[in-house]
């Protein structure tokens, strides 16, 4: 099968922040081992990943050092994290494959996406990013940099940026070229670096975040993938679907998604984006969408625990 794997960004950092980069490497290695099993089983993988914690660290560093080193705009932060996270993923997966005698290459491609409309109705249209500021500093940042800031109770003021829907992956050709030759491609980290085409027809970076769930579906279409897999912490999936996940892969009909979104207020923003993207895209193409925790990834499709969204168009496996 051709599979798009979309990893939550917080799976790629250590829960214990004191572990720093070693902790990140360990977390990434654990997931790489699972993805290796899928390659061994003969599946073709393209891997995309979130980057919220990683960009968060960059913004904190940038802010702490602002008086000495120039700060970084958001598109550059995204590019930085694509490089660093991609490196760690490709190294870890390549090491696993080498060890198992598999010859697939693993490559990271820096990826830009042309963004368009705000996230679709029902999905959060903005996202808070970076450090919290006191009121005075927040006002100065608003005045000097045009930032929008919002008060987060108990924490302080935080910058908010729009969350935009990706329309087109600029590097789709090179991704497809490598993917079709059996290489594992890591790309469009953070949903892709958001860019727009300006009046002159030039590509320019945008200060925004991308609805990365949509990017996963775009990749699926570009590569004619057979399946999209969203990988999140167990707890996050359980809280979202409100189901016991101990019974293998449960089917969830996509027509029930609206109902779920309405009735469950425990659904986190990141999951809300995924569910709404799934609802909007699944109807069009009938491609299976899975929600699984990281330790189940290697057992897909037959032996894993998790949720499979199904539409009327595909055979429902009981």
């Amino acid at each position, binding site marked *: 099968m051709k599979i798009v794997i979309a990893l939550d960004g917080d799976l790629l950092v250590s829960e214990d922040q004191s572990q720093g980069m070693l902790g990140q490497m360990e977390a990434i290695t654990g997931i790489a081992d699972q993805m290796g099993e899928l390659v061994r089983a003969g599946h073709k993988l393209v891997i995309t990943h979130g980057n919220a914690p990683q960009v968060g660290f960059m913004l904190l560093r940038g802010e702490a050092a602002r008086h000495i080193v120039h700060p970084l705009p958001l598109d550059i932060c995204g590019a930085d994290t694509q490089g660093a996270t991609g*490196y760690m993923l*490709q*190294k870890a997966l390549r090491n696993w494959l080498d060890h198992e005698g598999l010859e697939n290459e693993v490559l990271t491609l*820096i990826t830009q996406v042309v963004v368009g409309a705000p996230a679709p109705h029902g999905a959060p249209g903005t996202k808070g990013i970076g450090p919290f500021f006191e009121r005075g500093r927040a006002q100065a940042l608003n005045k000097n940099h045009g930032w929008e800031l919002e008060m987060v109770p108990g924490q302080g003021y935080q910058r908010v940026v729009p969350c935009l829907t990706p329309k087109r992956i600029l590097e789709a*050709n*090179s991704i497809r*070229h490598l993917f079709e030759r059996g290489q594992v491609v890591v790309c469009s980290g953070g949903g892709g670096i958001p860019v727009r085409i300006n009046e002159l027809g030039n590509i320019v970076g945008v200060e925004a975040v991308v609805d990365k769930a949509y990017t996963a579906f775009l990749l699926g279409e570009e590569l004619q993938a057979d399946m999209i897999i969203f990988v999140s912490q167990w707890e996050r999936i359980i809280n979202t679907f409100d189901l016991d996940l101990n019974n293998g892969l449960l089917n969830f009909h996509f027509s029930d998604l609206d109902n779920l979104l309405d009735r469950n207020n425990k659904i986190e923003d990141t999951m809300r984006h995924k569910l709404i993207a799934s609802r909007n895209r699944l109807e069009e193409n009938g491609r299976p969408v899975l929600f699984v925790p990281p330790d189940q990834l290697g057992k897909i499709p037959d032996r894993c625990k998790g949720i499979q969204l199904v539409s009327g168009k595909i055979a429902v496996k009981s």
Partner: protein
Amino acid sequence: MSQKIAVIAIGGNSLVKDKTRQSVQDQYKAVNETCKHIADMILAGWTVAIGHGNGPQVGFVLRRSEIAFQVEGIHEVPLDVCGADTQGATGYMLQQNLYNEFLINKIDKKVATIVTQVEVDPNDPAFQHPTKPIGSFMDQSLAEEKKDKEGWSIREDAGRGWRRVVPSPLPKRVVEEPAVKELINAGMCVITVGGGGIPVVADESGKLVGIAAVIDKDYASSLLAKGVGAELLIISTAVEKVALNFGKPDEEWLDRMTLEEARKFFAEGTHFAKGSMAPKIQACIWFLEGGGKTAIITNPENIGRALAGETGTWIVSE
């Protein structure tokens, strides 16, 4: 139709012009100019792979990391990950500007940035004599603490304080070379070996592990050029041509030399500055010995004229 492949190694001055122009906007402008010259190469019929330096950029990442660790206790970024960060960010700026240049020039080409690891030999003698200073100056007690706790090599730097020094081993293998080659063969413009590549070594079990080292970007570009079967290696630097007896009364600017002459001048040891022109000449010699036809050393603004044979220093295989 077989392609004419060129590798261009762009120097730090193509990205950061001087100390007053270091911000992201300044870097972006500098990259934009460089991309015009690369578009010239493509218009002249070359399929181009691009290597670039990252000295100042890694310096910025490290400085932010150090300050944020001191002020906020945020984990520090190890040197291999700094390299991956800058490959992402610089690759992004290059590929975006190239797309825009291609648009202006109606060039139908795709650009890909590949996050690239370069393997070095753990027995490289450079590991016994770390020479490259990185990061900020420290007082002696902090330097010694870092030495004891984190195994850093440290050195007193001409009365200005203490600095960390890391080895600069020779590149042995561009890990992602097969994929770079595939994309080049498909006619794409590929950005790779940024900063000389992310340095990795194979541990006893054969796994690649990132290390704290710096690889010369001209050496890495030369190795890549050999590997992908390039005819031409361009090293873009601060001077239009190479000089014998540089800076002395009998200084002599060179238009052309054969491989044999280049070897002879290099062996004389007095012509080319260590750590500056000497490694560039060495990189050209290795490239030509490995089957390359032509190496050119010139500055960014003269790339087009140098290709037309009007300037630059040409080093030819015979």
